[in-house]
C-alpha cells in the first residue's frame, strides 16, 4: 500500500473510477496550480480574466523526501505518553511515501490537543479556531486543487462544536483528508466528557455520570454520505500507516477515525483493543475481499439479514466478506456499529468504505471551465456596461 500516491491507484484498481476522475493529469507538475497563484510571483501581472485549468494532482516532489523533511524545530508539547506522538510519527513517516512536494501539503486544525499537530509538520499549516478547520480547508481546497489538504481534529472539535462543518464537508465531498483523533474525552480543557464518551462516564463535568448518548463517528459520517471511512489505532503504526495511505489516495473527503489514548484524562480507554493478550479476540481487521473475522479467527460476522453480529465458529452460515467498494452504505454502517461501545468487543478497524463520487472542488472548477468555454474569458468592460446604457455628452 505504501507506494500508493494521490492518484489513487489503489482505488482505481478496484473500482476503476479513481483514474477516471483524475483524467490524464497523472504526473503533470504544475507548480503554479489552478489559479496561477501558487508560484512565488503568481499574482504579478494582474492578468485579467483568469482562465481556469483542469484539476491537476498535487505536484510530485523532484527528489525523494525523508521523514526528517517533515519534522519541525518546534518542541512537541503533548503530555509524555500521549497517543498523539505515535500518530505524528506515522504521518511524518507516511508523507515521503506520497511523493507530493512538501510545499503542496497543508495541515489545518481546529482547537484541542490534536489540533497542535500542524506546528509539528514542516509543511504549510494553520492552527485555526474551534471546530472550523473543515471550513477553512474547504475554501483552500476549492481554490487550490493542486494542494493536498489535511484536517486534524478531535472528538470535541469535529463532533461537538464543529459537527455541522464535518457533516457538510463529507456530503460535499471536498478533497480533504480528515484525521479525527478520538480519545473520548476533552483533554486540553482538562477532562470533561466528550460527544464520544460512554454514557455514564464520570468526568469533571459529570461527577455522577454522563447522561449523554455518544456519537458513533463513522455511523454519523455515513449518514452524511461519506465516501471514504476508516478506523485505526494510534499504537498500531503499520495499520495506521496503511489506512492513511489509502485515505491519501482517495479523491474526495476521507475520514479516518483514530483511537487515541489520552493517558492523563482517559487512560486505557482503548486497552481492550490494544492489549496484545486480549485484542485479537475483540478486533476485526477489515480487508477488502476477505471474510469479516476477529483477529483470532474464532468469530465471524455471519448474518446477511438485518444488523451484523459476531457468531462463533460453530455457526453454519458463511462469514460475510468485506466489500469496501459496495455502493450502498448499509454494509459499512453495520460494520461501524458492530463494536460494543463499552467493552469494545467486535471493534472493526481498517477501511470500512471507499467509493468514488465526484468531488465538490472538481465539480465547481469544471463549472468554471464550462463558463469559460461558453462565454469566453470575462470582459470587465462589457460586464460593467451591461445591456442598458445611455450616453450624456458635454459638461
Amino acid at each position: 500500500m505504501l507506494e500508493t500516491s494521490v492518484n489513487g491507484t489503489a482505488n482505481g484498481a478496484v473500482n476503476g473510477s479513481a483514474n477516471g476522475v483524475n483524467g490524464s493529469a497523472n504526473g503533470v507538475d504544475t507548480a503554479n496550480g489552478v489559479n496561477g497563484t501558487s508560484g512565488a510571483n503568481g499574482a504579478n501581472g494582474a492578468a485579467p480574466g483568469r482562465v481556469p485549468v483542469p484539476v491537476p494532482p498535487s505536484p510530485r516532489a523532484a527528489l525523494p523526501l525523508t521523514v526528517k523533511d517533515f519534522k519541525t524545530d518546534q518542541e512537541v508539547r503533548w503530555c509524555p505518553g500521549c497517543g498523539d506522538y505515535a500518530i505524528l510519527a506515522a504521518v511524518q513517516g507516511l508523507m515521503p511515501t506520497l511523493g507530493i512536494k512538501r510545499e503542496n501539503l497543508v495541515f489545518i486544525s481546529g482547537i484541542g490537543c490534536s489540533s497542535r499537530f500542524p506546528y509539528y509538520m514542516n509543511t504549510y499549516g494553520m492552527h485555526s479556531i474551534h471546530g472550523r478547520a473543515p471550513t477553512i480547508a474547504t475554501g483552500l481546497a476549492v481554490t487550490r486543487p493542486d494542494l493536498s489538504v489535511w484536517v486534524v481534529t478531535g472528538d470535541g472539535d469535529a463532533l461537538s462544536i464543529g459537527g455541522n462543518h464535518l457533516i457538510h464537508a463529507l456530503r460535499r465531498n471536498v478533497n480533504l483528508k480528515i484525521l479525527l483523533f478520538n480519545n473520548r474525552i476533552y483533554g486540553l480543557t482538562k477532562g470533561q466528557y466528550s460527544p464520544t464518551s460512554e454514557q455514564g462516564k464520570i468526568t469533571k463535568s459529570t461527577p455522577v455520570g454522563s447522561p449523554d448518548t455518544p456519537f458513533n463517528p463513522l455511523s454519523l459520517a455515513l449518514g452524511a454520505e461519506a465516501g471514504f471511512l476508516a478506523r485505526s489505532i494510534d499504537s498500531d503504526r503499520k495499520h495506521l500507516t496503511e489506512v492513511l495511505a489509502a485515505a491519501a489516495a482517495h479523491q474526495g473527503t476521507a475520514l479516518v477515525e483514530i483511537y487515541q489514548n489520552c493517558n492523563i484524562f482517559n487512560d486505557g480507554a482503548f486497552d481492550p483493543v490494544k492489549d496484545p493478550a486480549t485484542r485479537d479476540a475483540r478486533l476485526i481487521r477489515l480487508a477488502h475481499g476477505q471474510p469479516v473475522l476477529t483477529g483470532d479467527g474464532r468469530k465471524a460476522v455471519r448474518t446477511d439479514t438485518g444488523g451484523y453480529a459476531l457468531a462463533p465458529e460453530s455457526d453454519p452460515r458463511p462469514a460475510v466478506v468485506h466489500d469496501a467498494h459496495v455502493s450502498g452504505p448499509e454494509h459499512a454502517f453495520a460494520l461501524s456499529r458492530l463494536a460494543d461501545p463499552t467493552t469494545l468487543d467486535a471493534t472493526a478497524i481498517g477501511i470500512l468504505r471507499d467509493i468514488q463520487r465526484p468531488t465538490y472542488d472538481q465539480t465547481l472548477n469544471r463549472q468554471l471551465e464550462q463558463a469559460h468555454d461558453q462565454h469566453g474569458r470575462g470582459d470587465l468592460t462589457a460586464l460593467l456596461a451591461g445591456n442598458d446604457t445611455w450616453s450624456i455628452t458635454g459638461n
Partner: protein
Amino acid sequence: MAGEAIEDKRAAPVERIGSVVIRIAGDSGDGMQLTGDRFTAETAAYGNDLSTLPNFPAEIRAPAGTLPGVSAFQLHFADHDILTPGDAPDVLVAMNPAALKANLKDVPRGATIIVNTDEFTPRALTKVGYAASPLETGELDAYRVHAVALTSSTVKALEGHALTRKEAERAKNMYALGLLSWLYNRPTERTLQFLERKFAGRPQIAAANRTAFLAGWSFGETTEEFAVSYEVAPAALPGGRYRNISGNLALAYGLIAASQRSGLPLFLGSYPITPASDILHELSKHKNFGVRTFQAEDEIAGIGAALGAAFGGALGVTTTSGPGVALKSETVGLAVSLELPLIICDIQRGGPSTGLPTKTEQADLLQAMFGRNGEAPVPIVAPRSPADCFDAALEAARIALTYRTPVFLLSDGYLANGSEPWRIPDVESLPDLRVQFAVPSEDGEPFLPYQRDPETLARPWAVPGTAGLEHRIGGIEKADGTGEISYDPANHDLMVRARAAKVERVADTVAPLDVDDPGGDARVLVLGWGSTFGPVAAACRKVRARGGAVAHAHLRHLNPFPRNLGEVLRGYEKVLIPEMNLGQLALLIRAKYLVDAVGYNKVRGLPFTSAELTEVIQGLIGDTAAVKGLGDA
C-alpha cells in the same frame, strides 16, 4: 414589432416639471418591484437623474390584501442631479385598499393618487379596516384622485388572448406601467424589448404583457381623466456612458473588478441572508471571470472558507448582514491574528437579532469596530450611495491586500436595493491592486512569516505551493518575526500594538476628508457616513437655498478615520451627526476627538428625509446664531 416605440400623438397638454416622486404600491405578489424597476429603466434611458427606494415585506407572500403584504417602490427622477429617492410621493399608485391605507400617511395633501377601483371591494376594504370605501367618504378630498379600473381594463384588453382570467389579471401591473409611462412621457421601446426578452420562452405571456402595457398607455392617451401629462427633461449630468445600478449589483461588480485588478481569483463564501443574498446570486453568474462562489452550511463556514481561500492566495470575501456578522466574529478575530486579506461585506438591516430583515439601519458600526474578543482592530469602509458600492468594494480590497487584514464594508438595505444612474468607469482608470507574494530569500535566510513591511507593517503573504516558505500560522499569539507560538508578556504587548499600529497606518493612504462648505463661513458641520449621504447633502442644499450656511463632510473610512478629521471638527462650532442608529459614530467621534457632537438619530427602518434634516440643521444654525448673539452682548 418588438421594441418599436409607440407613435406619440399627444393631444393633452404637456406640463414641464423639474422632478417628481412616484410610489407604486400593491400586494407583494402584484409585481410592484418589477414595475418599479421597469419604470426606472425607462427613466434612466430618458436621461433623468434618479434615485429609487424599494420597500417590501420580509414575508415572500403575506396574505393577499393585508397591510403586512404591501410592497412598494418609490422613484424620484428629475431634470437635475438629485440625491435621494424623495421625501414624499407626488404620485401614489395604489393597487388595492391595503396599499392605499399603508401609504396614505406619507402622501402630502394635493398629491395625485391613482387607485385601482376594481380591488376596492367590500371584502378587501373590510380586511384593512375601512368601514366604507375611502373613494366615497370624502377622506381623499384633499388629493387629486384618479379612480381607474386597472384590473378589469386589463382583462378587457386581453380578451383576444388565450389566458385564464387569473392570468390576465396578473398583467395589471403592466397596464399601470403603461399608464404611468404615458403620464410622464417615458420612452416605451425598452420596456417592450424587456418583455420580449423576459418571456422569450413564453410568447403568449410576452404578448399579453405587451398588450396590457400598450393598453395602459392608450388609456392615458384617450381618457379625459388626465387633463395634462408631464415631462421631466433629461438631467445635465457629467458626460459619459451611464447605466442604472443598484447597490448590491455595484458591490458585486466592484468585487469582480478588484479580482481583475489584483490578478487574484475571487472566492465568495456566503450563507443566504437578506438583504445580502443578491451579491451571492450575482457573483455566482460570473464563473467565466474565475469567480468561485460557495454557499456554505452557515455563516461561520462562509467566512471560514473565504479565509482558507485567502491563505491559498485568493481574494477571499464573505457577504452577510448583521446577524451573520455576529456569527462570523470569531473568524474575523482569527483573520486579524493571521493577518491575511479578507473582505467582510455587512449589508446592514434593522436589529437587534432578526430585527427588520428588509429594512435599513446603520447600527452595526460598533459591531464592526469592536465586536470581537481581545484587541482586534479591523479597518472599516462604507459606501455613500448605490453606485458608490463599486468604489467602496475596490477600496476595501485595496486595504485588505495592502495591509493583509480583514476589512469591513458596511453597506445597508437602502443602498443594497436602491438604484441610481452610474457613469460607467473606464477599466484602465481603476486602481492597480497587484500584490507581491513572498518569495524565498536568495541568501538562504530563514523565512519569517511575521516580519513586517516597514512602511505598511503588513506581513508577507506566503502562499502554499511556494517551496522554502513552509510555515505554520494560527490563532495563538505569535512571536514577532518568526510567528512561532509565544506566551511571552512583552511579545504579546508588542504584537497587540503592532496590529493596532498597522490598522492606523491605513490612514497614510487615505485622502484627507473633503468638506463641502461652499461659502466657507459655516458654523455648523454635518458629519455623516454611509447611506445618509443623499438626505444629508440634499438637506444642506435646501438650507443653503434658504440662505443658511452649513458644511457637510462624509466619511468613507470609519476605521481609521482620515488624518485631518480632528482638525475639520475643530473648525466648526457645532457638529451634527445624523445616523440611523442611536449614536454610534457620535460615540466614536466624541471619544476620540473630545468634540461635543450632537446626534440626530432615528431607527425607523427607513432613510432620513431631507426635509427633517433641513429642519434639524436650521435649528442648529439658529442655536449658534443665538449663542453668538449672547457672546456679542
